[in-house]
């Protein structure tokens, strides 16, 4: 379903070049839950950004559902992200002037889903993450855990092929982290493909496989 072939990513700073990813290869099947682990600076988030088409790799291929991402234009990538991918960011990344319901509805509206249906789908997604009573709250009126759940609802409301999560529990307390991971577990049970970067070995165990990165290379892939 998603295949990474010999992926590299380098950052240039003047004359010096830093190689962050040094030839990554792996494949994730539809419905799989994959955790990516590694110490700080190992290249976990960078790998996630390349896979999720938020960034351009220096070389190598990202193939999603048989489609080579390098062949897509900027507009096509935006559309691909809109329709096929979902994102959960470490810092929730909600729009502060939109309510929970509006934050979740927005990508659906961009997909040209009629407003009423978009609201209905957004309400369902928010209900799924336990926020049915917080629909009209602005992010500033929600706790960190609630904001992350809104972010998850936004990522899944349009039923994406792949859900990418970048350290979704990094800013949360234990209880909120547990709730978020329960949601991920449930989504996986329902067949959602999830690729998640995490620091927490405990949460990586929920995934089917864990990829360990170090110094821009995969050092192991373990089945949990």
């Amino acid at each position: 379903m998603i295949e990474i072939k010999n992926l590299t990513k380098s950052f240039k700073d003047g004359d010096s070049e830093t190689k962050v990813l040094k030839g990554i290869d792996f494949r994730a099947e539809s419905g799989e839950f994959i955790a990516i682990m590694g110490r700080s600076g190992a290249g976990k988030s960078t790998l996630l950004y390349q896979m999720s088409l938020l960034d351009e790799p220096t070389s190598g291929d990202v193939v999603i559902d048989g489609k080579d991402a390098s062949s897509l234009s900027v507009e096509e990538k935006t559309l691909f992200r809109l329709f096929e991918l979902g994102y959960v960011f470490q810092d929730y990344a909600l729009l502060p002037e939109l309510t929970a319901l509006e934050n979740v509805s927005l990508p659906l509206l961009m997909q040209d889903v009629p407003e009423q249906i978009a609201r209905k789908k957004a309400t369902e997604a928010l209900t799924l993450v336990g926020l049915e009573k917080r629909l009209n709250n602005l992010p500033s009126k929600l706790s960190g855990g609630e904001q992350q759940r809104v972010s998850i609802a936004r990522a899944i409301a349009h039923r994406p092929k792949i859900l990418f999560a970048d350290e979704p529990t990094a800013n949360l307390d234990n209880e909120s982290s547990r709730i978020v991971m329960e949601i991920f577990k449930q989504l996986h049970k329902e067949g959602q493909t999830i690729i998640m970067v995490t620091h927490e070995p405990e949460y990586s165990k929920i995934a089917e496989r864990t990829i360990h990165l170090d110094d821009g290379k995969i050092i192991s892939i373990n089945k949990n």
Partner: protein
Amino acid sequence: MFSSLNIRIGFFLAKRQIKRSNPWTTTLIIFVMFFTFLNLVVVSGVLVGLIQGAVDAVRAHYTSDVIISNLSDKTYIENSPSVVSLIKSLPEVQAVTARYLKGGTVEANYKTKIKETDKSDIAAATITGIDPIAEDSVTNLSKFIVEGSYLKPDDYDQVLLGAYLDKKYLAVDSPGFSTLTNVAPGTKIRVNVNGITHEVIIKGIIKAKVDELSMRVYFVDSQLRSMIGRSDYNVSEISIKLKPGSNPDLVRDILKKNGVDKVAKVQTFTDAEPKFIKDMIDTFALLGNLLSSIGLVVASITIFIVIFINAITRRKFIGILKGIGISEQAIEVSYILQSFFYALCGSIIGLLVLYLVLQPAMAAHPIDFPFSDGILVAPLGSTLLRIGLLMITTIVAGFIPARLVVRKNTLDSILGRN
């Protein structure tokens, strides 16, 4: 590019950004746009109004709506009584005044001259004979009395002196132009017209910003008529005030059709405007447009800065929007609509203030410029045109900074990298 979907999403985002933004910030931006609007409309409006005030004053207090004057080869209008009768018979006419005009001189302080060789206190003037009541009903001449009082129909040997003939009001001493010294109501002066010298008493001083009024000496018409021997009652000037809503062009044409143009020059107030006045109006309008253009540039820079700061501080959120698949165009539309909203609010408030407060207030209390009572000229058509220009400028000024920020790399925006 800007599809209906992008516009819909842009509207969705813009509406919520405006609705949930800091009300003080929004108020401040609208306030800036309001003053930008005033700068666009009022500055040029006052400049044009400066001249327009003078033109309006000439119409209201001298030419009135239609003026009939002697042909260049005559000093009077032939058959004036029948011309006046014809004018009075027209249904459009509200009031008429006929004036006898003659060149002459006025002399003061002749009694205090010690020797015959002492310099005489003499000034050249247009000696004017008026029917005080008719004149006042057309030109409100009595309004301009600054000293003494207005003429009555039986005021013989009494005159009104134009202020520009009194040194106290016009301290100019140039070759070919002189004024009288130490004169005031009650002072005796000599008027020399047609070689006949007549001693009269100054009854009042007339001071107006219309030069023609301030440079004349006014007699009651019957006395001047006998002084200059005009037993045929032929006058030199007739001013016609029309009923409200009447068309001066129509009245002029009727008079011409009746042959008045064979014995006199028949002009509407517009026809009678000197060319330099028309040129000045055009010049000031051009100057106003020039200043408005600068105002537009200032407005566009203001909007650019406001939207740029807004977009830069929200760069992360713009990155997130792009990250979750919102099109760049929809994001740009949201910023264009925000700047449009600010400009629209500023313009609407500006329109209300302009037409409900400023224009009526300045009409009631004109600015006291030395040569005119300045009013605010802001025709709705040109105001709407300026609003249109402001909107276009604003849209461009809102789009450019939004585009600059939106085109940045999505991930760099999300992570706050440069």
